[in-house]
């Protein structure tokens, strides 16, 4: 057993309202640059739908992920190493820009610079690739809220797969359609096919926290990672000629802050925390014969941080005690392994994805009935919900390679939690048989409720800070002009506010933000050292950019 730590995410699809705040804030933080105009590290898809890039789940077409060979070994679906090398001159399975979309802007300038005339000036769309006027025909989210629609949904690869089983139960007419949202980021897989595809060895999995990154200095632009990733979450920057991908906001994670998408999620549906897993068994688990066993194999890799044996092994393998502590409190561990409500996205790609999803419970009653559950009881639970629209088969195709069992298990747990908590809230007698029906105790059910429904910030995000020598951190603070009363005064350089070396993110925002979020006091402006930037200061705490000044002792003043 070799214990490694993995930063994982869980998204509760039940709560996603499809507002795209995560996508927008992610875009503003990471991909608002030339060359990655078309890139969304985080995107929110409406299912059913074609996704972004279009039909990326169709691995017969795009050849992402791994396959198991006859001899029981893992091989990239796109081909073996030599085969890939012969294809580096022109990757046959690279999505073209149209499969994503052609990014555009508008000729806004025309609105104010057009000469006086009869017609109202308009801002025509202009391609960001060619600079020419263009017709907008598709975008990252063109089929948003359409529930696929009769023109687009038939191309949904997931829908195609289950069409035989579900047949006419999937209705695409608007009054009968079903839909839900699927926010997607990089899965930071345990067995990443993108990393395995990279000929240059530029892509790597960080051994400390499992975040998958691209070394921009080593990437040579062979584009194999784009093909390798079955989720199509590695993108090619066409300006720099390098691969780029979701970084799980590692600069934030390293100082204990959640990712931008998580922080800004208005539905508070994202959870971040550590998994401990056995790195020695990853390949073996990813190579199990039956695709439907992959979910269990993946769960099996994840180690119980409460197990003393695992703890000893973790400490032996260099996992710091505070990380072990964080792993014990990890919300993602609890949701994925303890309660088994969170499921991996497309385990059949054999990449062991580490972003997990709680399936949407939404109108589910029919599913419970059709799959042999006591629909009467379910009716009691959800008097208002009349009919199922999201077929369990569809969810199973997304989360468990088509096995409805774990999806139903998860949905039952969620339904039971609602029913149980309704009794509790209405002052009734908590019915112990409800949690028992899904194999839980009343206490566990209550804990699950707190985690999912109350979802406090500190429960959702349990992120241990990265370790570094304290001395170096202090050094980071230093600047030769920062003596007391000196011209530096920390927040401004020699040539004004914006000059000088940028204050590291770690110092500038983290401590200031944390203080502002937690303080109740108003800063004492009479204090000569409390230099206040009134432009962006709300009166709470110490304003942004000003370091914490320890209270001076009377002797020194």
């Amino acid at each position, binding site marked *: 057993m070799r214990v490694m730590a993995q930063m994982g995410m869980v998204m509760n699809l039940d709560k996603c309202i499809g507002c795209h705040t995560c996508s927008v804030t992610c875009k503003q933080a990471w991909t608002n640059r030339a060359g990655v105009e078309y890139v969304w590290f985080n995107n929110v898809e409406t299912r059913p739908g074609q996704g972004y890039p279009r039909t990326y789940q169709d691995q017969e077409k795009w050849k992402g992920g791994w396959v198991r060979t006859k001899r029981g070994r*893992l091989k990239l679906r796109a081909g073996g*190493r*030599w085969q*890939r*090398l012969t294809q580096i*001159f*022109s*990757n*046959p399975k*690279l999505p*073209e*820009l149209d499969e994503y979309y052609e990014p555009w802007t508008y000729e806004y300038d025309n609105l104010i610079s057009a000469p006086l005339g009869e017609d109202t000036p308009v801002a025509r769309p202009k391609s960001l*690739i*060619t*600079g*020419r006027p263009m017709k907008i025909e598709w975008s990252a989210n063109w089929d948003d809220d359409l529930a696929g629609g009769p023109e687009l949904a038939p191309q949904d690869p997931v829908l195609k797969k289950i069409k035989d089983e579900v047949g006419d139960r999937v209705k695409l007419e608007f009054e009968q359609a079903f839909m839900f949202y699927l926010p997607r980021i990089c899965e930071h897989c345990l*067995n*990443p096919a993108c*990393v*395995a595809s*990279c*000929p*240059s*060895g530029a892509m*790597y*999995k*960080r*051994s*400390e926290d499992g975040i998958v990154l691209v070394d*921009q*200095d*080593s*990437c*040579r*632009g*062979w*584009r194999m990672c784009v093909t390798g990733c079955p989720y199509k979450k590695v993108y*090619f920057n*066409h*300006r*720099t*000629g*390098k691969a780029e991908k979701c970084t799980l906001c590692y*600069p*934030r994670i*390293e*100082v204990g802050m959640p990712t931008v998408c998580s922080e800004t999620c208005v539905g508070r549906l994202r959870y971040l925390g550590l998994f401990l897993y056995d790195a020695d068994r990853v390949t073996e688990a990813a190579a199990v014969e039956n695709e439907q066993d992959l979910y269990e194999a993946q769960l099996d890799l994840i180690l119980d941080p409460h197990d003393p044996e695992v703890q000893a092994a973790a400490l032996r393998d260099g996992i710091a005690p505070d990380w072990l502590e964080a792993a014990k409190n990890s919300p993602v561990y609890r949701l994925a392994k303890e309660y088994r409500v969170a499921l991996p996205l497309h385990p059949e790609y054999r990449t062991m994805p580490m972003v997990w999803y709680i399936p949407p419970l939404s109108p589910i009653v029919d599913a419970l009935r059709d799959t042999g559950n006591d629909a009467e009881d379910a009716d009691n639970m959800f008097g208002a919900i009349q009919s199922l629209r999201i077929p369990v088969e569809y969810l199973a195709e997304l989360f468990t390679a088509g096995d409805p069992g774990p999806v139903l298990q998860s949905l039952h747990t969620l339904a039971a939690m609602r029913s149980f908590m309704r009794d509790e809230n209405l002052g009734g007698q908590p019915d112990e048989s409800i949690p028992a029906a899904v194999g839980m105790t009343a206490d566990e059910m209550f804990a699950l409720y707190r985690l999912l429904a109350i979802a406090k910030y500190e429960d959702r995000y349990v992120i241990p*800070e*990265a*370790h*570094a020598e304290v001395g*170096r*951190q202090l*050094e*980071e603070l230093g600047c030769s002009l920062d003596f007391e009363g000196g011209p530096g005064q920390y927040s401004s350089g020699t040539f004004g506010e914006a000059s000088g*070396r940028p204050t*590291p*993110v*770690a110092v500038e925002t*983290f401590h200031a933000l944390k203080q502002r979020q937690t303080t109740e006091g108003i800063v004492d402006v009479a204090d000569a050292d409390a230099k206040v930037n009134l432009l962006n200061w709300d009166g709470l705490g110490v304003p942004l950019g000003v370091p914490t000044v320890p209270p001076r002792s009377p002797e020194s003043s």
Partner: protein
Amino acid sequence: MTESTTVQILLWAVLPYVTIAVFAVGMIWRYRYDKFGWTTRSSQLYERNLIRIASPLFHIGILAVVIGHVIGLVIPEQWTGWAPEAAYHAMAVVLGVIAGVCTLTGIVLLIYRRRTVGPVFSATTKNDKFMYVFLVAAICLGLVTTFYGSGIFGPAYNYRDTVAVWFRSIFYLNPQIQDMAESPASYQVHAIAGMLLFIIWPFTRLVHAFSAPLGYVFRPYVVYRDRGPHDPGSRPERRGWERVGR
């Protein structure tokens, strides 16, 4: 042995060493200071139908050309004495012409694509255009030389007695200027074009040829790396702003 003129010395003794120096130092400089710019800068994202044919045609062609040059220039004639001269020559000409034509067709298609496909054209830098002139010149002159020396349009020319000897003599630090000076003009012009190409090489996108990822075949599939020495949350220092004492 006749005296070499100044021009001959400059072309066949000075220029080769200048080429080697600029190439070697240039590559080291580029690698040390511009790893980020060291990329194929593929335009496949914009257009994939033409590149599907043209790029492998060009690249496999040019790899064959490189192998042909190595065999022709590096291996002394005596070493291949076991093969009949006529057979060797015929082989070399046939394979050389095939490789050369593939390369030329490939690059013509690629340049046509670069010019006519809007997004590809707007992604073409001045540096690229500058480089294409030298690359295409070297390829065309090489093909002309192959035809010229083949014996199809006149007497065959055995460059292995002269050009190859001169080429190897450069690396013995004893350049045989006369060997090259007496070779036909087409060989001389091609050699000069080749040297100029190697001089600009480190400063163009051609550097990606030297990152052929052969290590991929031998390394484990999944690569793990440590977080490295940088401080949590902050980006690495920028070039020119490094801290003292590291």
